[in-house]
């Protein structure tokens, strides 16, 4: 019997999959390939469980991590987008539960998922004007004003 990891590695053969420890797989892809990869995950691996989407500020780039789970194995798809063009294809049509997580990253880091059906202001209060708090160069509104 093959373990879930072996099964995944078999399907994703040819892609640069990194295994840090058992049950943890990482795969870095360019952002153009995102939808293609997601389709593979969804159709060939029959993954339905998107755990969450993490985004982080790497300095000049913003890194996105899509954490999926299949039988206890966490598969993380990594991709980046530059800070001056923070857009990414939305995966809502493939994974409906991403609707929440994409709004979250839109709100706290200002990444725009293209094709997202409902991108209302969702981070922080409605009247929030202070920018994206989880970016590294972010400062609290009070400090921003003081600098100006």
């Amino acid at each position, binding site marked *: 019997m093959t373990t879930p990891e072996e099964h995944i590695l078999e399907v994703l053969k040819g892609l640069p999959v990194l295994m*840090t*420890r058992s*049950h*943890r797989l990482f795969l870095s892809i360019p952002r153009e390939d995102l939808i293609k990869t997601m389709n593979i995950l969804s159709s060939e691996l029959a993954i*339905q*469980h*998107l*755990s*969450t989407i*993490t985004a*982080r*500020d790497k300095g000049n780039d913003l890194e996105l*991590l899509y*954490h999926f*789970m299949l*039988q*206890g*194995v*966490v598969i*993380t798809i990594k991709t980046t987008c530059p800070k001056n063009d923070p857009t990414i294809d939305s995966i809502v049509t493939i994974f*409906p*539960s991403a*609707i*929440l*997580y994409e*709004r*979250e990253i839109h*709100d*706290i880091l200002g990444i725009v998922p293209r094709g997202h*059906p*409902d991108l*209302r*202001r*969702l*981070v*922080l209060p*409605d009247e929030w004007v202070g920018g994206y*708090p*989880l970016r590294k160069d972010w400062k609290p509104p009070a400090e921003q004003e003081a600098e100006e």
Partner: protein
Amino acid sequence: MGYVKLPIGPQHPALKEPENFTITLDGERVVNVDIRIGYIHRGIEKLMETRTYTQNLYLVERICGICSYAHVYNFTQNVEEILGLQIPKRAEYIRTLFLELERLHSHFLWLGVAGHEIGFDTLFMYTWQDREVVQDLLEMISGNRVNYAMNAIGGVRRDVSQEHRKKVLESMDYLEKRAEFYKNVAINEKTILARAENVGILKPQVALRLTAVGPTARASGISVDIRKDDPYASYLDTPFEVITTDTNDVLGRVVVRVLEIVESIKIIRYLMEHLPEGDILKKAPRKIPEGESISHTEAPRGEDIHYLHSNGTEKPDRYKVRTPTLANLPATAEMLKETYLADVPIIVAAIDPCMGCMDRVLLLKDGQEKPGELISGEQLRRYGIKWYAERGWNA
């Protein structure tokens, strides 16, 4: 009288935490639900980047007061993975003990809350009284009833003595009897059945598609349990079963939780009887090398996943938390459709919502899958704000 919009929350007796469900009603039937969360967004993720790992131990605990230990466990597991630190076996067992005690207390708490939501206050009083037994154990071992501050990076801070062991085992006997009693009440009391059976239906396919987790998913017949799928702590050693039911309704969620109480009791017995000797704490450095790690655990409410990226300093570079309640929200919106107003509290309660967890980053969720079904989400929201301002009620 046409459609009525009823705001439940942010300050509402059904929700012990501030959230807002704007419910559109046609008579007593729910036409639409708009879920607005984020009232208790405290910016913890950003705050964590400004604190040292030691300080974060306590901050991460306060993401949520009910499943606090699951969060701390995830945090320490992440840090230890990056450090490559193997913690002592005894510490591992004590951590598992706490994870399970927490599940016990959370499930008892939930039973009471569910009883309260359907007006069964006697059940609420009884389960909470029994919950005190678990709380006493937690307090006895850790020194606090809720935020235990039990973990340190590299192990646990307090040991379990012989005396504690005896007390834990005694309490388990009592709790097992009580769990049996509640099971009987839940599946035989007619008025509970009237409120729980065929209420809040969540079909397995829908549950999978909307990534329901924890007892919510297991009540829809999906056998998902991180403790089995990706064993952490000492779950590999411990024998236990994953409880599922296939009724897909609130009653199923009650039964799953009651049976999980029984399973937890079994696990705790095993742990207490096989507690290995040895150290409980290994010294860890203050600076954590660069790296990244993902940790997920089966919190009482479902899969709780944390991501840590460290950059070689004393403070984390990015810490991300996704809590089970957030994952269950889309499913809740689905369950609420076409139900009665009276069922709203119990359906919401059935996922065991823990808004404190969810709101550490702010989110705004619109329950409508298809915007513009009644009026668009944006209009609805504007209307809601205006409504509050006009009525001055609790907005």
